[in-house]
């Protein structure tokens, strides 16, 4: 039942985007997010959409796959759209009884929901083109400078690694426990929310006990293999910036400049 899950959403490939250093990709994603919040005019949104589309093309990802990534948040996107449509002030373009839609409300609604869509798409592109392990490496490197202010960079990365390792194992275990409880006559389907939540207890309790036991054994096994935190630790994969990373960085700078120019010059025009 739970066996056919895939870990993360990595879409393996050898494209330019796939080969970029994870640090470049994380930083590029962050600068894109800044660009999205700087964008104010229809033109700048057009630039951003064009940028996302060209990244999808460069990464050779199926467009549909990236579009699907907005699915989990579609309700919020529709709500954002709706609220802006109904509460906008200004020139009324359509009305029915007490409901009226204004031109400003419409453009605000479209922009706000487009913002969400762009944010979702760009972060999905990051996870589609970067394997979780490489991503973890990248995050660890990027967080290193913040160690001095108390950010546990290595510990966070190790937690992510272990979580990635044990998610499939624990899912398998959940499946096994569910079957065992079903064999004893437990009922998981049907009934109201409270009944169903109660039905989950016989799964969760054994699962938690076993997870703690696993954690204990894993800790001992890690210690016996000389694990003693991030101090003096080396890595099999060394992250190296290459020419393509410079290229990607340049592209990001150009994007930010375009968006910035559009924002400020727009302001000037209004004045």
């Amino acid at each position, binding site marked *: 039942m739970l066996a056919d899950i895939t870990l993360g959403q990595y879409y393996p490939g050898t494209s330019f985007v796939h080969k970029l250093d994870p640090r470049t990709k994380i930083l590029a994603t962050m600068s894109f997010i800044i660009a999205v919040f700087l964008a104010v005019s229809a033109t700048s949104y057009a630039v951003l959409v064009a940028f996302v589309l060209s990244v999808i093309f460069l990464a050779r990802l199926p467009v549909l796959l990236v579009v699907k990534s907005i699915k989990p948040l579609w309700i919020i996107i529709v709500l954002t759209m709706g609220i802006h449509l109904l509460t906008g002030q200004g020139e009324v373009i359509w009305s029915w009884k007490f409901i009226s839609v204004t031109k400003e409300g419409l453009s605000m609604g479209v922009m706000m929901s487009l913002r969400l869509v762009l944010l979702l798409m760009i972060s999905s592109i990051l996870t589609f083109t970067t394997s979780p*392990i490489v991503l973890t490496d990248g995050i660890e490197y990027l967080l290193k400078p913040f160690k001095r202010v108390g950010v546990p960079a290595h510990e966070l990365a190790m937690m992510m690694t272990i979580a990635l*390792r044990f998610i*499939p194992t624990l899912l398998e275990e959940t499946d096994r426990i569910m079957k065992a409880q079903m064999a004893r006559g437990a009922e998981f389907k049907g009934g109201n929310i409270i009944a169903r939540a109660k039905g989950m207890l016989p799964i969760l309790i054994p699962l938690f006990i076993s997870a703690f036991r696993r954690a204990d054994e894993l800790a001992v096994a890690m*210690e016996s*293999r000389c694990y003693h935190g991030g101090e003096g630790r*080396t*890595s*099999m994969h060394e992250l190296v910036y290459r020419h393509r990373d410079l290229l990607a960085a340049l592209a990001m700078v150009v994007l930010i400049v375009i968006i910035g120019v559009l924002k400020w010059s727009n302001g000037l025009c209004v004045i």
Partner: protein
Amino acid sequence: MQPIIKVKNLTHIYTDGQNNKIKALDDINLAIMPGEFVAIIGTNGSGKSTLARHFNALLQPTEGKCFVNGLDISVDENIWHVRQNIGMVFQNPDNQIVASIVEEDVAFGPENIGIPHAEIRPRVEAALASVNMTEYAKHAPHLLSGGQKQRIAIAGVLALLPQCIVFDEPTAMLDPRGRKDIVKIVQNLNKEKHITIVYITHKMEEAILADRVIAMEKGKIVMEGTPAEVFGQVKKIHELGLEAPLSAEVAEALRQAGYELSRDIITDEELATALCQ
């Protein structure tokens, strides 16, 4: 020659959930020489795992001393030397694999002790080759069989280039095929790479492969000797709550029935030869 592991008057007392003091090990003396293959047998709770965990400094003695290469394991500065030289493979293969890709997991040990980046990959490749898992280097561990996972766990220990590996019931959770693979790898490591092996097991068929068998009961060493010496005493083995290998059991039954058979018979071949005479 200096023993690789030396245990002197070791006693280990721990407190259980009800605040009772329990003596898991009681005045143990033991020396394991380089290159030896030692099997430790005993029922559950006889203290064999507790003893093994001292070899790797995972546990510290309550009384007495434990030395690895002459270094006291209770001295903090020695712990990393001890853990690097005495590897440990546990029973549950799932709970000792850290990373979600096989080669990453094998690299975990060398990364921990700060091996330079360029030397890690050769080590990982050599370790995977010695357990015949080279082709699985990029696989996800949760998709492998129990036996394969256990081989990865062994590779993870081998990448640290240990002098000795302690196996704590490595085959208890495996199917017969996985068990056979592991036993074969353990023998190879001992014979070809001259790695000292300490092998804790419930399976007497595995224990007879060792150079020396140690039987434990209630925290004490009660029998010690070559497999033939130990398993020849079938009655005493039964008193410990254990079973001798099948051939030794059959030979004992035949002796009881009045046939004259040597007490050295512990393998099927030896039994067959004796019966044909």
